[in-house]
Structure formats: structure tokens, C-alpha cells
């Protein structure tokens, strides 16, 4: 038997198994799901293992002519993770957890502050009107300024949304709604092309119905 053809049939059955979930949960879906979980869990572990343990740890800390000793810290923290396997010393596994949480919080605190807050504020500062601009550009600039400020007002936690402040918050939520509606509508097309890809595989590659 030709393995190429076997591969196509296998892929076709997997595809149909997943699609059948749209009707209801069934044996084919369960089978596809079971295979998917088993294989992908193994796959990613293998990839991470070779990549991190061999590609990064072994190469940098042991094989390299100028070994990087600090990589061992990672290994030690990793081994501490395994303490969870025992009930007695399980609490030691909290150390690597605490390390990860602290590092993530510390690292991303400044990163988000700069790339989200500061960069966005800076790029919103723009002239409302410049020589040569049409009325529409001016209008658009005003819309953006109002949208950003009112959007921020909506997120205020410590002030009641009432009076003028309430109106601004209301406008803010409207802007958010436009954002959500527009992004939803915009992505529909790319979602369709995904399905086209699968149908193209089923009708074209598998059933050979498309010339």
C-alpha cells in the first residue's frame, strides 16, 4: 500500500471526525480527540525536551568550551519541581513556582508599562490639524482622541459613573463596542479561508472532485 495515500486517508478521517462534532458528540470525534491528545502531548514534550534540555542546557552548560554555569540554576529549580511527587517534601516545589511568578511579574511589569501604556499614549499625541489636511482627517483625529480618553474613563474604578464623567464613560463603552463589532466583522473573512482550506483538502486532495 502506498503510504502517501494512507496518509491522505488518515488525515481525511481525522478531519471528518472533528467536523462531526458540530452535529453532536460521537464515537468518531472521541476517537480523533483521544488520538489528538495522546500524540500531541507526547509530541510537544519531545520537542521541548530536545530543545531545552539538550539544545539549551546540555549545550550551554556542559558541552560548550566556555560553559555557562548559571544555567545550572534552571536545572536545580526544575529538579525542585519534582518534589511535588512526594507528599512529605512537596512544599519545596513552591520555590520554583514562586521564582516563576516573581520573575514573570517583575519582568512584564515594566515591559507592559512601556509597550502598552507609554507607547500608546505617545502615538495618540498628534496634531488635530496640519496644513493641507482635509476636513475628514481632522474629524478622524478628533474621533481618535475622544475615543481613547473616553475609553480610559470607562475603565476608572474609583469614581462613580455619573454626571459628565458618566457621559464620558458611556461614550467610552460605545467606542469599545464599535471596536469589538468591527474586529469581529474583520476576522470573519480569515476564518472562512481556514474552512476553505479544509474543504479544499477534502474535495480536492482526498476525493479529487475539484479539477
Amino acid at each position, binding site marked *: 500500500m502506498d503510504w502517501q495515500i494512507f496518509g491522505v486517508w488518515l488525515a481525511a478521517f481525522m478531519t471528518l471526525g*472533528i467536523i462531526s462534532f458540530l452535529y453532536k458528540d460521537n464515537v468518531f470525534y472521541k476517537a480523533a480527540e483521544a488520538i489528538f491528545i495522546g500524540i500531541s502531548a507526547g509530541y510537544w514534550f519531545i520537542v521541548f525536551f530536545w530543545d531545552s534540555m539538550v539544545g539549551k542546557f546540555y549545550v550551554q552548560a556542559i558541552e560548550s568550551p566556555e560553559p555557562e554555569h548559571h544555567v545550572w540554576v534552571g536545572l536545580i529549580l526544575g529538579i525542585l519541581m519534582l518534589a511535588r511527587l512526594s507528599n512529605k517534601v512537596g512544599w519545596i516545589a513552591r520555590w520554583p513556582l514562586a521564582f516563576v511568578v516573581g520573575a514573570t511579574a517583575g*519582568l512584564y511589569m515594566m515591559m507592559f508599562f512601556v509597550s502598552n501604556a507609554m507607547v500608546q499614549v505617545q502615538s495618540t499625541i498628534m496634531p488635530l490639524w496640519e496644513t493641507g489636511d482635509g476636513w475628514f482627517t481632522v474629524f478622524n483625529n478628533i474621533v481618535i482622541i475622544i475615543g481613547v480618553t473616553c475609553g480610559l474613563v470607562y475603565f476608572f474604578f474609583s469614581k462613580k459613573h455619573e454626571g459628565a464623567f458618566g457621559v464620558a464613560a458611556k461614550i467610552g463603552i460605545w467606542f469599545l463596542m464599535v471596536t469589538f463589532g*468591527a474586529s469581529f466583522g474583520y476576522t*470573519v473573512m480569515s476564518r472562512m479561508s481556514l474552512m476553505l482550506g479544509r474543504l479544499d483538502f477534502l474535495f480536492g486532495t482526498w476525493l479529487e472532485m475539484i479539477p
Partner: protein
Amino acid sequence: MKRLIPVLITSIVGTVLVFSVFFPMAETWGEDFSLFFDIIAVFAFFLGGGNLVRVHLIKVLNKKGDWKFSIVTLIAFAITLTAGLFKFGSVDIAASVTAEGTWMQTIFNNIIAPLSSTMYALLAFFVASASYRAFRAKNREATILLIAAFIILLGRTPLGMFMTGWIPEWFSIAQIPNLAVWIMNGPNLAGQRAILIGVGLGVVAMSLRLILGMDRTYLGSDHD
């Protein structure tokens, strides 16, 4: 004690990394953390993968529910692990585990890839059912959501031009496809920015609470 040390670790590591961006000699510490993290994650998988095997073994042993499918999962897991650890099909042992011709690559191309792209493609159906249900003019907010989505959807089809093509050139912004472009670049941009700025500030406050140890349920309790 069991709790104090982890809280201290979080605070110290967090504080150090917050300030690391300001000191040239410490600028690469963030990358070091990613490296450590990758190694920790591999060890953590022994717990995760172990949990996976345990859960399905128990199902099989107790013949509970869909236990037959658990056998499938276990076998699939075992085969992939073996094929990957011993690099089945690999010509050169030093080559990548997913290199051309390996079992891992075949598994990926013929099983994982079609399965995940089909799962992804289900979105086409869910986008339709969600639009049917969610885009209803229930109140003012929902109506705005509906109108924005509707204009963008129309703008992406010939229908939009068909309906508003008669609008004269000097006011062509009111033609639906052009209006759709504007919504994406005007109000949509403003909304996105407001969200991003908020997120930036939210992360700062949350990180501070974690580093100060105000929020520490994730570290478990003193009791055991």
C-alpha cells in the same frame, strides 16, 4: 517557614527584574529567566505527563465511561514518546528531532496538522452561529456592536458597493466599503488603544500586589 521562603523568593526575584531594565549589565537577565523557565517547564511536564497517564490508566482499570478511548490516548502517547526519544527515522542523530524524514515529522504532518487545522476551521461555523445569536439590537450597546459589525461585514462583500455605490465621489466616505476602512482606522484604533493603555496599568498594579506578597494563594497554605 514553608510559606515565608516562597514569598521572599517572589518579592526578591520580582524586584530585581523590575529594576533590571534600567541597568545595562542586568539587561540580559530577562533572557536568562526565559532559559530557566524552559528548563523548569520540562521538569514540570513529568508531573503533567504523569497526571495524564494516571488519569487514563485509572479510567482503563476501572472500565469507567469512555475507557476504550483512554487506551487509544495511552498508546498514542507512548508511541510518540518512544519515536521522539530515540529519534526514529532520523538519519543523523545530531539532527533536529522533527527533521525531514523522521517519524515525528510524519506524525506532525499527517495527524497533528490536519487535526489542528480542522479544529481551527470549526471557527467558520461558530462565527456564524455567534453572529446569529449575539448581534441583536437588545440595547444601545448591543445595537452599536451590531451596526459596526454589519458595516464591516457588508464592506467586505460586493453588496456594500452595490448598496451605496450611487453616493457621489465627493462624499465617497459614506460608501460602505470606505466607511468600513474608516471604522477600522478611526474608532477601532481608539478603542484598541484605550484597552492597551488600561492593560499596561493593570499589569503594573497586579505585579506590585504579587511582588508585595499581598496576593499569594497560589503558594498554597501553611497547613501541610
